């Protein structure tokens, strides 16, 4: 694949946090590519490093307790990680926008939603207060908030969770960004609202021609929405796949676990499958493959050597050598 195909490339990204005087690796050696108008899904448990990766793209970590140990994030020929704050500020919200998990706390409680949506336009396009307000009404219409003209003067606490997430989306798309990063956009919402928000994102993506990075722990959400999937575990990408291949034939035992954890209404089993054990302490990752203590298929080598990503085809990569070997056999 030519690098020019990708609008965003994360290369060998390693991010560390300071915790109790020690640097803890939260994300290790992550490679991800996002092509123009593509939707990339990142899936994994909490603590797998998916949100950290996303926040790093926009440089939204607290600078003092975060260290980018290695890697590059290439966007339009520039490395976002080495960009001066001013230049990064011009990209944030204008070219790469982000929406977050909890719409309840992600909106400023003392500013009207019109102010908050208009602010993006005032910052990046130098719009005046009146024009920004007018555009805010249009944007509220775009995210299907009824009675936008009246709603624009409301404060966030007067809106439901779903409405607030729509406001967040309106804010994010105000400047027609090229990339939208959605970090668990539906996790905090009711199930019925989740579907509406996902549909809205899908429609807007088509309308505006955005590339999207969708982060979720929910395989169901990811499978419906994305062209390409990366599965993360304990700070590493353990498997990635273009298209639906990942669901038909997972190439990592952790992916199996995630797929089994999707509730199935038609199934007779009373209990939902879980992955035994829990995600390792990022301060002390296990030797060898990070998943081996929880892996039903672990063999002795898994405990000793940390596996690298293995390219299976143009579409597939895995960090599980036994599975890779079985496939080629």
């Amino acid at each position, binding site marked *: 694949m030519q690098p020019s195909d990708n609008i965003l490339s994360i290369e060998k990204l390693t991010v560390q946090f300071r915790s109790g005087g020690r640097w803890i690796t939260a994300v290790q050696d992550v490679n991800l590519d996002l092509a123009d108008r593509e939707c990339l899904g990142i899936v994994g448990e909490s603590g797998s490093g998916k949100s950290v990766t996303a926040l790093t793209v926009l440089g939204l970590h607290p600078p003092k307790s975060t260290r980018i140990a290695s890697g590059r994030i290439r966007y339009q020929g520039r490395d976002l990680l080495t960009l001066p704050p001013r230049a990064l500020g011009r990209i944030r919200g204008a070219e790469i926008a*982000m929406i977050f998990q909890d719409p309840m706390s992600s909106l400023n409680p003392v*500013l009207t939603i019109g102010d908050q949506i208009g602010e993006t336009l005032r910052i990046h396009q130098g719009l005046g207060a009146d024009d920004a307000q007018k555009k805010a009404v249009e944007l509220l219409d775009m995210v299907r908030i009824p009675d936008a003209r009246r709603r624009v003067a409301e404060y966030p606490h007067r809106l439901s969770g779903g409405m607030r997430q729509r406001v967040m989306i309106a804010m994010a798309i105000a400047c027609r960004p090229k990339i939208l990063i959605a970090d668990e956009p539906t996790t905090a919402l009711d199930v019925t609202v989740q579907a509406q928000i996902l549909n809205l994102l899908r429609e807007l993506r088509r309308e505006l021609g955005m590339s999207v990075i969708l982060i979720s722990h929910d395989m169901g959400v990811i499978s419906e929405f994305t062209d390409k999937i990366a599965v993360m575990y304990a700070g590493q990408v353990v498997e990635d796949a273009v298209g639906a291949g990942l669901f038909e034939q997972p190439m990592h035992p952790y992916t199996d676990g995630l797929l089994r954890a999707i509730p199935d209404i038609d199934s007779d089993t009373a209990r939902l499958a879980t992955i035994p054990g829990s995600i390792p302490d990022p301060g002390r990752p296990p030797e060898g493959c990070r998943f081996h203590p929880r892996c039903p298929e672990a063999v002795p080598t898994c405990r000793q050597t940390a596996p690298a990503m293995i390219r299976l085809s143009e579409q597939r990569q895995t960090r599980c050598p036994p599975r890779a070997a079985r496939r080629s056999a």
Partner: protein
Amino acid sequence: MLRLVAVRLTHAVPVLLIIAVLAFLLMQLLPGDPAVLMAGDGASAEAIQQIRERLQLDRPLWEQLVSWVTHLLSGDLGTSLTLNQTVVSAVAERLPVSLSLAVVSIAITVPVGILLGVIAAAARDSWIDVAVMAIALLGVSVPSFWIAILSVILFSVTLGWLPSAGYVPLSDGFLPWLLALLQPAIVLALFQVGFLARMTRSAMLDVLDQDFIRTARAKGAPESRVLWKHGFRNTLIAVLTVVGYIFSLLIGGSVIVEQVFALPGVGRLVVQAVLARDYPLVQGTLLLFGFIFVLINIATDILYVVVDPRVRYD
């Protein structure tokens, strides 16, 4: 909004009534016979009896209370025993001085305290933060009479920039008024700035950890906008509370500072009244301070609604 003001004021009535009764009880709670105490050492029995009659201390308690409240409602707080004037006029004469001092020192405190607090929070844990907080701690801890005296030595005696004592009414011109108050106001502000800066900083630190601050940064908002528009705006409740509190303390008169700078304010009046055992005056000022305190609290409560749309009283 008007309704809110009316409701709040109505709610305050019982509190004001309790304050009035407490002020009344002050006279009863004194050990011994207040008339004897007031008359002082070596007073004749006649003089004591006179005071007793003048203050109606010979009547039953309930009658005294009724009389006190009815007089109060007609704006009569009695007559001072030592000054040749009514309590109301004695206080009215000195209130503008304390009010002027309060206004000037608040006008210094609010911008400086807020600025220092926000800067310290923004530069959390850096040397700037440590320095600002050290200065704030110093301002809170160092006694104001000491600062006041040092300040007089430096600015009035050595440099001769500012008058060392006395008050000039506002009617004599803004500049002379301001110059007379500047030094005592700055001395007072040193303490208040420390207090306000610490409170602003801690409120800002809470706010800066919130998700919506990350949202503001994700929008591409420059750091100054993140700090003030998104951060500071959300600390206004805390800031307002502190400013209201400082203001009500100041109205009660800054006893020490008024003393050092010879300002004829209510703080000095209270001290004089207590030392001279002028109980009607003590009662009257106590009542006044209670009322002002309640009114400032009501004003603060109402302003909460203005600064934070989530606050509602109904």
